[in-house]
């Protein structure tokens, strides 16, 4: 038994997206509530229907107990959170679908609320975060083996993986630029996007270098905001406001020795210059009974542009080491490419809400209501991470297999 097609996403909602700190004086908890209400409204449901919360990376901005109490959820029957960080974005919906498939809950909300006013993800591993900073990791015995080298932020760390990929396979900065530029082109057509100015190849190469080989435009945005999705049984989904986005498959985790990944740098040689997604991709395709050839649109977690290329390889859209050429050939462009990627503008140019905007876009694509709609899209791949374990993914489809 698997969770294949047992559940469907029936509602998506969000707050506006803000540049870092501009969501004040709202609280993260308040934005979580607003996003959930918007997603329920989209579905034609109400708080009284909710009986589960399936989360990742402390996405509520507070604890489930307080959230249920404040929002008036009548009875919580399932509450769980994937361990780890942003890698759990897509997988949190899989967690909700698992609860539904097993009969533990019938209507589960997954959401992420983010506010970076007090602290910045970009300095997550800096040694002296501000007092009370939400995201600055305290020094740890393991971190002692990284931080004295001056590696203090995820972008600096992923730059090390990108550099290795360039060394092994001849991947070029022009390839990273194609990810950044194609994503920006998608964002420019959307009212919700924070970055709507044209990004040219010259503009990309003129930008300041941050952590070689990554320049400013290889980094995602720093944002505030919240995104929620509502998942319910496949049966009930058929009678709601929108066409269901069936959860064809979901998987999370990773090889044990991928482990903490960027914060230990000891991953096995054959996996180092990867996204960590290979074992998760295999389980996703096995559960779905399908493969990369059936995917119409891919929403790939894009905190840093090279990681899109590595995921394209790890999900089998091209061979290992061929991701740079794959994007250079125009494959990820909307609407002309063979596999439009991040049609919503991604973390790079629309907004960084730790991957939940990718889930929202996946739903809108299979509904057929996306701003940058892939014509006739039936199957959408959504990923969370590259990150420490778990990374995750979700395959949505407009009809059961």
């Amino acid at each position, binding site marked *: 038994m698997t969770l294949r097609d047992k559940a469907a996403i029936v509602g998506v909602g969000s707050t506006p997206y803000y540049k870092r700190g501009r969501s004040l004086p709202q609280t993260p908890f308040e934005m979580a509530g607003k996003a959930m209400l918007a997603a329920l409204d989209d579905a034609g449901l109400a708080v009284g229907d909710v009986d589960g919360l399936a989360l990742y990376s402390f996405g509520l901005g507070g604890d489930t107990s307080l959230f249920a109490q404040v929002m008036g959820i009548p009875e919580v029957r399932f509450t769980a959170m994937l361990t780890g960080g942003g890698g759990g974005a897509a997988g949190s919906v899989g967690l909700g679908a698992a609860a539904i498939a097993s009969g533990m809950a019938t209507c589960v909300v997954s959401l992420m609320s983010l506010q970076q006013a007090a602290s910045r993800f970009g300095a997550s591993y800096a040694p002296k975060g501000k007092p009370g900073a939400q995201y600055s990791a305290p020094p740890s015995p393991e971190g002692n083996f990284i931080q004295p080298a001056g590696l203090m932020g995820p972008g600096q760390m992923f730059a090390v993986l990108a550099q290795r990929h360039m060394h092994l396979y001849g991947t070029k900065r022009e390839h990273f630029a194609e990810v950044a530029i194609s994503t920006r082109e998608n964002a420019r057509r959307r009212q919700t996007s924070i970055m709507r100015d044209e990004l040219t190849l010259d503009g990309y190469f003129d930008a300041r*270098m941050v*952590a070689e080989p990554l320049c400013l435009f290889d980094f995602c945005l720093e944002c505030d905001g919240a995104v929620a999705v509502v998942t319910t049984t496949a049966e009930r989904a058929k009678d709601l406001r929108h066409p269901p986005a069936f959860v064809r498959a979901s998987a999370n985790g990773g090889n044990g020795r991928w482990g903490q990944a960027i914060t230990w740098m000891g991953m096995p040689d054959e996996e180092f210059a990867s996204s960590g997604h290979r074992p998760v991709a295999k389980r996703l395709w096995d559960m779905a009974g399908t493969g990369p050839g059936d995917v119409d649109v891919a929403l790939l977690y894009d905190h840093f542009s090279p990681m899109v290329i590595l995921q394209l390889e790890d999900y089998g859209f091209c061979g290992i080491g061929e991701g740079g050429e794959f994007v250079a050939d125009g494959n990820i462009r909307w609407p002309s490419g063979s596999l439009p990627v991040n049609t919503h503008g991604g973390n790079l140019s629309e907004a960084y809400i730790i991957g939940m905007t990718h889930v929202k876009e996946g739903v809108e694509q299979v509904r057929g209501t996306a701003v940058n709609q892939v014509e006739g899209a039936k199957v959408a791949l959504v990923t969370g991470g590259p990150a420490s374990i778990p990374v995750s993914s979700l395959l949505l489809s407009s009809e059961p297999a």
Partner: protein
Amino acid sequence: MTASGDTLAKLPPAELINLTPDVFTKPFWDAAVEHRLVIPRCTSCGTFRLPPCAFCWSCQAQDVEWIEHDGSGAVYSFTVIHHPLLPELADSVPYVPAVVELPDTNGCRLVGAVTEVKLGDVRVGMDVDLVWRDVREGETVPTFRPSGT
């Protein structure tokens, strides 16, 4: 303004380095103060592991012997930090964190900044030697420089 290839690599400031050893990593850092690199090797199956930790990932045994290593290795990958992430780093960029693979350790890697090198000369595969950096009394961390300099 991005530094040119002739610019010499700097180092992150000592004030930002903060070691917090536990029972498993303390022998490593104690030896570092004496400018000795020691790496724990499983007494059961012979597998090296870094960072030092409670269990052997290969056989799950706990006991280790501490093997001395000269710290010479090859750059496995690296980045050049141009943008100061914190205000305290403004005078310390550019610097070059590198992941260095140590031979004869079943692929253990040590992470440290590469110093005494022009930015344009840093390469994956470059041979480097370990240089201990005393950051304060009782705290010493690894850095690297190109071999033979």
